[in-house]
């Protein structure tokens, strides 16, 4: 049974803080993804990674960076958090050749004040 875990369910940070969101998957998946979910906008892809140290920008990468030092772990970094980054953040993973079948974590609700 695939499990994707995210480090926090709820997080409150101040404007300008550096924020790390961590994601770990236990099924040896090659692909990992970070999305944000906002009302009226659905899920939007921020970044994805298909291998260790590899990353590709999604639709909305501005203000974010990522790190993948180990296959099972994918981190999303907000270098200087802003209020417009208040959102639900979802991590997902998939096999390399079944990227459409993504397994999601429960999400982290980040509030930036």
């Amino acid at each position, binding site marked *: 049974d695939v499990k*994707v875990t995210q480090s926090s369910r709820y997080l409150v940070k101040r404007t300008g803080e550096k924020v790390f969101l961590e994601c770990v998957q236990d099924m040896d998946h090659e*692909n990992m*993804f970070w*999305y944000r979910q906002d009302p*009226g*906008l*659905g*899920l*939007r*892809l921020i970044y*994805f990674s*298909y291998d260790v140290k590899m990353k*590709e920008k*999604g*639709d909305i990468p501005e203000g974010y960076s990522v790190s993948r030092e180990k296959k099972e772990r994918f981190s999303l970094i907000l270098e200087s958090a802003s209020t417009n980054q208040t959102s639900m953040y*979802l991590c*997902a993973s998939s096999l390399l050749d*079944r*990227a*459409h*079948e*993504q*397994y*999601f*974590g*429960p*999400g982290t609700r980040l509030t930036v004040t």
Partner: protein
Amino acid sequence: DQQVKQNSPSLSVQEGRISILNCDYTNSMFDYFLWYKKYPAEGPTFLISISSIKDKNEDGRFTVFLNKSAKHLSLHIVPSQPGDSAVYFCASYSMRTGANNLFFGTGTRLTVIP
């Protein structure tokens, strides 16, 4: 600009009846379509998919229909059960650009009334 649209934010159906969830897309390059289901406090889970070479795909109580000329897909759940109450997202992508970049709709909240 939303390339995948779910115009109904919510839908209520009696248990045992058919649930029909609709989705429209604007990008004619999309050729693979998916439905995900999301329960509260959980991440979305993959439900069913269809490629553009088909117009129907069935998996148990779930059937997805694709109308390419109308750029429209729908998910039918028959019979609906209370456990089907969830938010349903449709998503799509172009095989040319790859499934790493899925485009999701905004979701439809289905409530199945016992």
